[in-house]
């Protein structure tokens, strides 16, 4: 019914309803390789629900989500992750009681089965990879810090790092700069630009300035439907968007 495409992610006819209320309504949406795509829209527009649907947290009522031509709607969450989809949550979701190093280690894509986890050993390869990622997310000096003690921005980075260590083909970030200072935002924008090389990135954001800094492509979501898609300028000048979202 849904054909294969060249896109990294192809969402077609996606619908989910809660108690008769359609949170996402017949959504069609494509994401190219190496594309950094930002979804904006007011709260309740269904942005987070779309991420939930892609990563399997919520089951779709109908429609298809294809990742590298593999149907995701039938997979369980961990299988979707193993297929190469990483997802960062809105509030930083890290293990507060573990150190930064342990946080990354736990996320290292080895020993994912029960017995693998029992037998897992911290080898040099693992350590090297951890250091590499930590450098990328600007936390190399904090490896032995308990994650709960990090600043808000650093926690956001750590969670991104926990995804990077798994080297996903698709990275989904829900409001990655919420609560960050201006300087941290800039660093994050840099980080995102860097990591979008070689993989597709899907970001949910409000901050229009930040969106302008990073987005290759923008989609405006409103009441579960797409209002407009295109680059930043197109979207900002779209009469629909102005009417419904931005206001005159």
């Amino acid at each position, binding site marked *: 019914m849904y054909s294969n495409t060249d896109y990294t992610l192809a969402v077609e006819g996606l619908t989910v309803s809660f*108690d008769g209320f359609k949170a996402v309504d017949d959504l069609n949406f494509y994401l190219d390789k190496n594309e950094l795509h930002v979804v904006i*829209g*007011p709260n*309740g*527009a269904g942005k987070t629900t779309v991420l939930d649907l892609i990563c399997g947290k919520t089951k779709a009522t109908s429609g298809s989500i294809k990742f590298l031509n593999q149907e995701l709607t039938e997979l369980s969450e961990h299988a979707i992750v193993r297929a190469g989809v990483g997802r960062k949550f809105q509030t930083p979701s890290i293990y507060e009681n573990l150190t930064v190093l342990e946080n990354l280690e736990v996320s290292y894509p080895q020993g994912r089965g029960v017995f693998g986890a029992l037998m897992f050993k911290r080898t040099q390869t693992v350590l090297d990879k951890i250091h590499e990622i930590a450098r990328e997310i600007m936390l190399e000096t904090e490896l032995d810090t308990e994650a709960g003690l990090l600043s808000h921005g650093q926690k956001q980075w750590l969670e991104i790092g926990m995804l990077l260590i798994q080297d996903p083909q698709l990275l989904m970030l829900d409001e990655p700069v919420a*609560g*960050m200072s*201006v300087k941290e935002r800039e660093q994050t924008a840099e980080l995102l630009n860097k990591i979008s090389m070689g993989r597709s990135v899907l970001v949910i954001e409000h901050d229009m300035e930040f969106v302008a800094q990073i987005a290759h492509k923008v989609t405006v979501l409103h*009441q579960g439907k797409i209002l407009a898609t295109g680059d930043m300028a197109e979207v900002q000048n779209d009469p629909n968007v102005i009417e419904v979202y931005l206001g005159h």
Partner: protein
Amino acid sequence: MLNVSNLKVSYGQSEVIHGLDFSVPKNETLAIMGRNGMGKTTLFKSLIGVLPASEGTISVDGVDVTSCESYQRVENGIAYVPQGRMIFPSLTVKENIETGMEVSKMKTIPDEIYALFPVLHEMRNRKGGNLSGGQQQQLAIARALVTNPKVLLLDEPTEGIQPSIIKDIANVLNEIKKMRDITIIVSEQVLSFTMAVADRIIVIDGGKFIHEDRREDVDTEQIRGYLSV
């Protein structure tokens, strides 16, 4: 109307609000601006009594409410629209508003509320959780208004709201101020919204007030500077 002196608030061992003093007269709208993590929400929570103050006093219309529970503060005239709205998702819109009528002893929802927010009348039998963000924000304000407050607290009312609705909310706030003798305190990061509603602006940073201006004296560049360090 609202007097706060030497207010200190702590989470566990660490003090987040370091001895704030301010007072807001009747019919004034005060905006408290600051970046994330600077103590805005903590301040609001301690004003409504969700977080206890470790030191200092808060009084409304001359009544000391420092040691009161939240609901008693509401009885004394404080109303609270929290960050993220926090409407009751599985109650209907009508029921959501009615939860605020506990204190005012009203029997039915006054017409002026629906006049202010026509969309809520339209959706009065829908579940609150199925409203859009902007609608939820209106609902949260309506819920606060039916308590007949003397002081209305709004914590980041524009967060996550589409720009078009932000303007509506500003209009509503100004409307409310005209209709009632009410003190409004709003916390914000969006300067344009602040400028549309506030009579006075205070900037908070690291749990302390660092700057204060009447709206007419505001140097927007300076404020923007504070907000983006």
